[in-house]
């Protein structure tokens, strides 16, 4: 687990009410769900595509279904959860727009974090070197990256506006530093934030 990820988790932990019913989409081996269960006593449910991840979750006693967020969110009933979490997984979805709108059908609030493709290092890699960026948050070369739908803070804002969602809060995430509340509409933050976590609700 990288330090940046830990900041992501710490911020999500802070945002999670005690005892909430939580769906973690793309929960991996259940590190976040386990943290939320221990620290907040949440009633957690995970969705994870890899058998290895689900097996690890089951061994830790977490309720996790093996499935594909792009396809299987449809089976969850409307407003079944207090909170749906999509932690650094949005950019790996085939249809991020559908996934975000499904999250806010299933849950009252969605917590979505993703790497910011508008960060200055990314822009610099393209501008100065003419190459796809390989950074701390986006470490893979273009031909092996699982990140197929990258966006900037402002791209994401446009999507939330389009879907009629309300941004309750937003914080910038950076490796080894505490989450920093930001105004995601700021031009400067679209350069500065390495990654961001949004709390959304229906408008």
């Amino acid at each position, binding site marked *: 687990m990288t330090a940046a990820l830990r900041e992501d988790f710490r911020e999500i932990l802070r945002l999670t009410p005690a005892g909430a019913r939580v769906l973690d989409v793309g929960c991996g081996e259940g590190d976040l769900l386990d943290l939320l269960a221990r620290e907040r006593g949440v009633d957690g449910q995970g969705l994870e595509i890899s*058998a290895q991840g*689900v*097996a690890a*979750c*089951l061994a830790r006693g977490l309720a996790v*279904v*093996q499935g594909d967020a792009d396809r*299987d969110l449809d*089976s969850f009933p409307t407003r079944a959860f207090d909170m749906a979490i999509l932690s650094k997984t949005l950019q790996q979805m085939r249809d991020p727009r559908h996934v975000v709108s499904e999250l806010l059908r299933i849950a009252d609030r969605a917590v979505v974090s993703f790497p910011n493709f508008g960060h200055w290092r990314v822009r610099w890699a393209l501008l100065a070197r003419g190459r796809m960026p390989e950074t701390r948050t986006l470490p893979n070369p273009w031909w092996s990256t699982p990140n197929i739908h990258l966006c900037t803070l402002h791209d994401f804002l446009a999507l939330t506006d389009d879907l009629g969602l309300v941004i309750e809060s937003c914080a910038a995430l950076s490796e080894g530093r505490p989450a920093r509340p930001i105004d995601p509409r700021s031009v400067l933050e679209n350069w500065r934030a390495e990654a961001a976590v949004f709390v959304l609700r229906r408008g």
Partner: protein
Amino acid sequence: MKAHSPEQNGMESGGGVWRFSADRPLRLDSGATLAPLEVAYRTYGQLNADRSNAVLVMHALTGDQYLASTHPVTGKPGWWTRMVGRGLPLDPDRFFIICANVLGGCMGTTGPGSSDPATGAPWGLSFPVITIADMVRAQAMLVEALGIETLFAVVGASMGGMQALQWAADYPERIFSAICIAGAARHSAQNIAFHEVGRAAIMADPDWRGGAYEAAGVRPEKGLAVARMAAHITYLSEAALQRKFGRELQRDGLSWGFETDFQVESYLRHQGTSFVDRFDANSYLYITRALDYFDLAAAYDGQLAGAFARARDVRFCVLSFSSDWLYSTAESRDVVRALNAAGCRASFVEIETDKGHDAIFLDEPALDSALRGFLASAAERRGLA
């Protein structure tokens, strides 16, 4: 009623046959009633003071109550000794584990081989057609008779998994958790087709005698063996058969005849002939019929989620095997989607294996760890130490 006997693994084991008298008839889906009813069962471990640690394990089509005890006919170890025992996921030191022979079975529970009280002769084909829900009703009667209000878990694989789902639909308030391994919410056309091959083989045996073979002092062993051979192929995978046997021969060279040239033939023939020693042909007909009739969503306008609408407090664990083509992962996924839609708390994983449906009974560490993890967390929630 409860006879104790020393068992393997040094486990405390009990059981016997529970007899429900004629004033407590079992009402069947077909409209018929069955009385008196006998249910044969085994138990492992001890019921705790607040009766909260009982686990009902439900066997597959040709299984029986000898879950972790030496089989009285074959002398072989119980069918799930790798899952039930000290230090294993189903630990008799923690749980009171019950396994009953299924309704329609041939190991002590009332079935077509039992005596029809009206005639004193074996039922044969006059035994009423039964369903998976009827099997579960009989189990529920036993569980109640044993003084257990709520089961900590119902656990089943294959047909047992279907029973676990039926428990969740019919008695959600009487179970805390449900585990369905390599099961399905309904029998597919392919499942029915294979069963029909087995039934046709039995009925084609001249010794079947329209089901009245016992009175004639014969048994349709050839037909039953063929039924088993055909069914056994569906329990394996092509990869497993290839790995185990390939095209290996029994002897050097071909026989240029119809002897058992190939090892896979010998294996299947052995499966067939050893099966007839411990199983009854009419039971095979009735139980396969019950499976074919199984369609959990049917009573809910075809909406499977409806079956689980009352089971929101039940913790579910659904497991499938990647190479199982009899009850495939797609079938389990349908169950999981319905559980999600019903707002149930569910876990699901497809276990990677080339062993096919038979992986239930084989060394599959991922199955053990999944069950262990699920049971441990459910036990914690249930307040079981």
